[in-house]
């Protein structure tokens, strides 16, 4: 009888297990394959051959094993199935198993209805995600784990996808939050993702098995899982064999396979050639000459240097405290470089800058006089208050200043940094439109770097490799998580590092051109293009850009320092005769700070804030959504319709004497528009309306286990928490109608709700086991059809002893209350517009959906706007002032029809701007966004869009809003 051999080829590792004839495990190995899959498998098997020789029944498993098995003709067993086999043999009493791998996450329910689940395509990265985060923290995974165990608090980090999480982590780093806390928060995010994305309504309980590499090696992650699931030590099982578990299962699965000689197996795997599924594109350069010419052309735009060691006189300092890197530049009045610095900020931008500033003073030896300093970038506020810089300047403006230095006629600037892609068009010497990447396509720049490092290469070497690649691979352009996957696939198919390097460069460029700029053709970009940002220092990226656009562009030699250079120029222009406030050498020597994090109790938002106290006693607060956190008086809210609507809505619910029953109204999705109707309706009928708790991250987590589709929009996912909250409040029933049609406001072809708003009650009913026909009333009604609606409502409520005539009367009153509410909102909008005009304030129509009123959904953007001295309106407060519109798309949803008319109003009036709020995952807004933009641009107005999700990162939003203000000349 032959021995049993199992080979598990995962996305990052190769695991092998061997059983002898009497089913004793006699060998196991676990090796990282660094994407050299075949070679690693062969090496692992050769060890088996040397140690034991002989014949084996073999099965291959694992995400990277599929292709290998298909082409080698060896048996394949799906990895979850392999785990299933092993679990049943070794842990027959387990109830559930959680397995995290390099790129996959799986849950296997063993008891109470066996079920096996795997993450969807977008929940990308678990092990890979942890790797990426560790790189971001500048730690090894092991170090990050050690840190995590010392954590004291958990920050909310978007768990849905690596790209999103990164956008949450970066600001924490910039704010100087404790690495230990961040590390633990990252692990918590992995847990949250596993529970919401995979368990989806099924509770994980009983004896739970934890499998896969990350769960085996990372104690912090183990701790997060055990605590979140509230497992007792005997119920949380971490097998010693966890990393090789699938390989063991695969081996056990091989019993009925044909025995083969080990050398035959090795040969079969060796003979696998690279597959045919990769798409290749053209090489970047024909030959070395073409490259040399390219280099010569770009060298022409380098700045001149001045020697700081001998220089005596005035100079200007620019600091760009970016998301992943910190840049400093010191220039002479005639724009020569005295000093420049570019480094990864290692999560400590402040330390880096203080350090470098000291170096500058030391080098200058008292001969330098910093006449002015300006700070830009994510860390602007913190750094500005720390070094007492004279100015803060919005990133986009800084970049524009810098670009004009190289080409006064510049009409298009694209900046690809580590985290963000920013593009702006210049018209008549001012920024005309700004395009920033959405969170979903962020992190492209740093992705190359992270990837190069994972390959054990420096970024320079890695990009050089790509220049002369013969067959650059096509890697997609949607987001880095998908690119990551595509790279892995390409590697499995045998693509070389050079081809991948070139492919990545072109992916990033395509992402920028087609996803961020959304250009239809290269001609749209402009004639005088300046490219910048650290990523463009990579010649492969620069070349890809020129090839894709078919244009020669300017890349300054200081492409990575343009923000800092622009800030220095800004400081030079603005300072005039004033003395600079920037710390001098002596004050700098005494500089120190203490960082402390806490929770703000200013309001119910409970923001996690971080307070940095400088040696001179001044404080810098970050993480706060409003001025309260910073200890300031909040800006007046009387010019904020969001604040008005929130108050107006909560006043709809009033106490009812001797009520028939308590009805829960979940304040989310459509209820945000219809609350006045239903509150009045039920009050009139003698029910006590009870509102769900205010939305919060915490509330979201409470309902997370019933979320069925993790790619639905955040408002929908929050709804689950609202339902839990009402159930916990002990209401008699929850009321949430299904409405295919919204109210016909006569400004669109049809008046649908979006599918999510229309039918979400169905999903809630199906996925929350606490809901039943008894305590969840969800009639299908059309508010335009009164008698039908009354009939439906009567049928739903008659068991509470209401009469049909009463229902009819209550419905009429409810509809009247709804109209009154809408009228009030419009009147308030009118008032705000008038006052703003009187006070000469810009008004912003923050246009979205009724449920964007929710503070957890809009993250307090309205408050941010009022703090910038702006008046805030909403789409429903102004749309009736707009004309009826005919748009290019089918105008068939009520809320979206309001949006178009609101845009029409803004586009045709001075003193008002529009910012469109779009929930991530909103399919409808993929359609409306382009239309609203077209409406704005038709009348020469700026279009600004802000995508919002569970991400709580007002920093990016602020940059975007300030850029907009700068473009209209208000910042």
């Amino acid at each position: 009888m032959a021995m049993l051999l199992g080979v598990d080829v995962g996305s990052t590792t190769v695991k092998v297990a061997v059983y002898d004839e009497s089913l004793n495990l006699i060998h196991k190995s676990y090796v990282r394959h660094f994407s050299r899959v075949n070679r690693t498998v062969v090496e692992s098997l050769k060890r088996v051959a040397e140690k034991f020789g002989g014949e084996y029944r073999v099965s291959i498993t694992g995400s990277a094993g599929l292709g290998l098995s298909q082409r080698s003709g060896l048996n394949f067993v799906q990895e979850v199935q392999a785990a299933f086999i092993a679990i049943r043999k070794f842990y027959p009493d387990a109830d559930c198993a959680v397995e995290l791998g390099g790129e996959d996450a799986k849950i296997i329910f063993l008891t109470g209805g066996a079920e096996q689940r795997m993450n969807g395509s977008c929940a990308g990265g678990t092990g890979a995600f942890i790797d990426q985060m560790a790189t971001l923290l500048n730690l090894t995974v092991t170090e990050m784990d050690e840190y995590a165990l010392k954590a004291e608090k958990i920050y909310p980090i978007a768990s849905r996808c690596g790209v999103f999480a990164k956008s949450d982590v970066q600001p924490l780093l910039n704010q100087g939050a404790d690495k230990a806390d961040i590390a633990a928060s990252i692990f918590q995010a992995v847990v949250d993702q596993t529970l919401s994305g995979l368990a989806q309504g099924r509770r994980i309980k009983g004896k739970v098995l934890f499998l896969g590499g990350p769960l085996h090696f990372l104690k912090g992650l183990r701790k997060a899982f055990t605590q979140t699931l509230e497992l007792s030590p005997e119920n949380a099982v971490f097998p010693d064999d966890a990393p090789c578990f699938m390989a063991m299962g695969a081996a056990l699965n091989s019993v009925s396979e044909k025995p083969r000689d080990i050398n035959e197996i090795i040969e079969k795997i060796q003979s696998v050639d690279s597959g045919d599924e990769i798409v290749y594109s053209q090489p970047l350069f024909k030959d070395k000459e073409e490259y040399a010419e390219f280099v010569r052309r770009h060298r022409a735009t380098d700045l001149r240097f001045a020697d700081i060691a001998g220089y005596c006189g005035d100079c200007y300092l620019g600091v760009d405290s970016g998301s992943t890197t910190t840049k400093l530049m010191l220039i002479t009045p005639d724009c020569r470089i005295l000093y420049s610095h570019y480094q990864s900020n290692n999560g400590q931008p402040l330390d880096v800058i203080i350090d470098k500033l000291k170096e500058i003073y030391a080098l200058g030896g008292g001969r330098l006089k910093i006449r002015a300093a300006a700070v830009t970038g994510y860390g602007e506020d913190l750094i500005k208050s720390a070094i007492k810089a004279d100015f803060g300047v919005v990133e986009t403006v800084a970049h524009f200043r810098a670009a004009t230095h190289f080409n006064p006629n510049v009409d298009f600037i694209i900046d690809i940094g580590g985290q963000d892609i920013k593009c702006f068009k210049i018209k008549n010497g001012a920024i005309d439109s700004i395009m920033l990447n959405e969170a979903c396509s962020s992190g492209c720049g740093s992705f190359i770097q992270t990837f190069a490092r994972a390959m054990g290469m420096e970024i320079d070497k890695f990009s050089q490799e790509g220049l002369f690649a013969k067959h650059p691979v096509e890697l997609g352009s949607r987001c880095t998580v998908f690119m990551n996957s595509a790279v892995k696939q390409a590697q499995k198919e045998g693509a070389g590092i050079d081809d991948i390097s070139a492919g990545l460069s072109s992916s990033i460029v395509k992402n920028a051109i087609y996803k961020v700029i959304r250009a239809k053709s290269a001609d749209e970009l402009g004639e005088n293009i300046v490219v910048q940002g650290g990523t463009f220092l990579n010649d492969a990226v620069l070349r890809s850009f020129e090839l894709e656009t078919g244009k020669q562009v300017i890349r300054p030699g200081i492409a990575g320092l343009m923000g800092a250079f622009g800030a220095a120029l800004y400081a030079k222009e603005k300072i005039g005769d004033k003395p600079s406030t920037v710390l001098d050498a002596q004050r700098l020597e005494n500089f120190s700070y203490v960082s402390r994090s806490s929770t703000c109790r200013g309001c119910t938002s409970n923001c996690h804030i971080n307070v940095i106290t400088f040696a001179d006693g001044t404080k810098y607060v970050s993480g706060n959504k409003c001025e309260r956190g910073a200890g300031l008086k909040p800006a007046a809210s009387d010019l904020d319709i969001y604040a008005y609507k929130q108050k107006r809505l909560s006043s709809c619910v009033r106490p009812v004497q001797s009520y028939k029953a308590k009805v829960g109204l979940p304040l989310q999705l459509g209820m945000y528009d219809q609350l006045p109707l239903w509150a009045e309706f039920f009050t009139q009928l003698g029910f006590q309306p009870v509102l769900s708790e205010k939305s919060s991250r915490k509330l979201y987590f409470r309902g997370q286990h019933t979320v069925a589709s993790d790619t639905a929009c955040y408002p929908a996912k929050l709804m689950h928490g609202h339902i839990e909250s009402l159930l916990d409040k002990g209401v008699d029933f929850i009321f949430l109608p299904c409405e295919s049609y919204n109210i016909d406001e006569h400004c669109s072809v049809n008046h649908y709700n979006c599918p999510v708003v229309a039918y979400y009650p169905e999903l809630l009913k199906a996925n929350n086991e606490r809901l039943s026909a008894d305590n969840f009333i969800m009639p299908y009604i059309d508010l335009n059809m009164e008698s039908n609606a009354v009939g439906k409502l009567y049928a739903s409520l008659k068991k509470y002893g209401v009469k049909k005539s009463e229902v009819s009367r209550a419905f009429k009153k409810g509809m009247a209350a709804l109209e009154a509410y809408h009228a009030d909102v419009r009147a308030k909008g009118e008032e705000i517009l008038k006052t703003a005009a009187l006070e000469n304030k810009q008004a912003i129509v923050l246009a979205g959906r009724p449920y964007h009123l929710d503070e957890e959904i809009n993250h307090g953007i309205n408050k941010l706007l009022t703090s910038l001295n702006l008046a805030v309106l909403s789409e429903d407060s102004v749309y009736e002032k707009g004309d009826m519109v005919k748009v290019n798309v089918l105008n068939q949803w009520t809320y979206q029809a309001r949006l178009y008319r609101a845009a029409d109003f803004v586009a045709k009036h001075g003193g008002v701007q529009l910012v469109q709020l779009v929930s991530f995952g909103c399919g409808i807004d993929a359609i409306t966004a382009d239309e609203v933009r077209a409406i704005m641009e038709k009348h020469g107005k700026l279009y600004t869009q802000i995508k919002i999700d569970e991400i709580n990162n007002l920093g990016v939003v602020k940059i975007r809003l300030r850029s907009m203000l700068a473009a209209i000349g208000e910042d």
Partner: protein
Amino acid sequence: METFDYTTPYPRWEEGMKSTHKILVPDMLPWHFSIISEIMKMEGYDVEVLKNDSRQVIDEGLKHVHNDTCFPCLCVVGQYIDALKSGKYDLNKTALLITQSGGGCRASNYVSLIRKAIYAEFPQVPVVSLNFSGLEKSSSLKLPFSLVLKLAFAIFYGDSLMWCYNQTKPYEKVAGQADAARDDCVKFILEAFGRGGYRNYKKINGRIISAFAAVQRSSAEKIRVGIVGEIYVKYARLGNNHLEEFLVKEGCEPVVPALMDFVLYCIINVVNDKKLYGIKSGHPHIFAFVYRLLHGIQKKIIKQFVREGTFTPIHDFSHLRACADKVINQGVKMGEGWLIPAEMAALAETGVPNIVCAQPFGCLPNHIAGKGVIRTLKKLYADENIVAVDYDPSATKVNQENRIKLMLASAAENKKGRG
């Protein structure tokens, strides 16, 4: 109140173009379009179903539609643009045809989105809507009733073809026989449309069944796998990475529910809406009449299947509706709405509990009627084994296939458990 027109002028379809223009059709329903396109030709429409299927197609789609737009729209736009760029067509004499349902889903906007994407590069090419909801009046194909009737029959025959082929191909003893039977049937069907007698569905359908029944089949037991989901990725090869072929290769029998069910679903929704909300407008009685007519034919076709005995018959639409009622309200009518859970339940009840629920990444109705109902279905049918697969230009095939394999492994496991 004034109306401001923000529309970009676009070329419209005029009836006269029928004689001058070639009409390109995306490869949405390979089974049905091969018949329908020929019928259209007989009626004087110069129709061509696009078969381009390279990565280039997806890339063109990516370039020309918004990142968050659904995958089907991206595929269709990609096929069009790739074709228009190929140089094979006279751009001044080419039009693009797309169907439009007019429901509350984004899909109703495909026409506009395609028009926008095409207009940027090919401003002279009209995009034509084929719909039965009175939309796009200025640029839609107005088919004579006789042709609409022909299309309805073509759908019935396409369904039977697909249904018999899928039950034959995995079992054929001599490779190629199932395909030969299909070619033979298509020829026969088209002849019927050409010389008249296409309405004799008993004869035609009988002929389809017997052609496939004549193919020698092995008695190997295979896992039967249902394919449900969003209409495009459910049927289109380009959309679902050749899912049917993949399943056959994996040793399974793909079970793809009939297109007529979707047609009946669209028709009955109008009737349902009237009942559900008391809506008076429209002509629900006409829809009810057409529904009864088509459903009547479907029932007779089912009888033919039963009498002949070789193949399991197609689903009875009234059974699908009864199945839907167990899971979700028939008021869920956007996108494929209640039809998806209905099909998943009906499949489970007819011995096909293993299901791929194909959906475009981020598909809105599918949150509710796809992923949202899986839990309910599992409670109803102990064996129900559903894998929801997202289709997206950037999702890798390996990733999709691995998930399907997991479902298949569970299927094999369940089968063992029962045996």
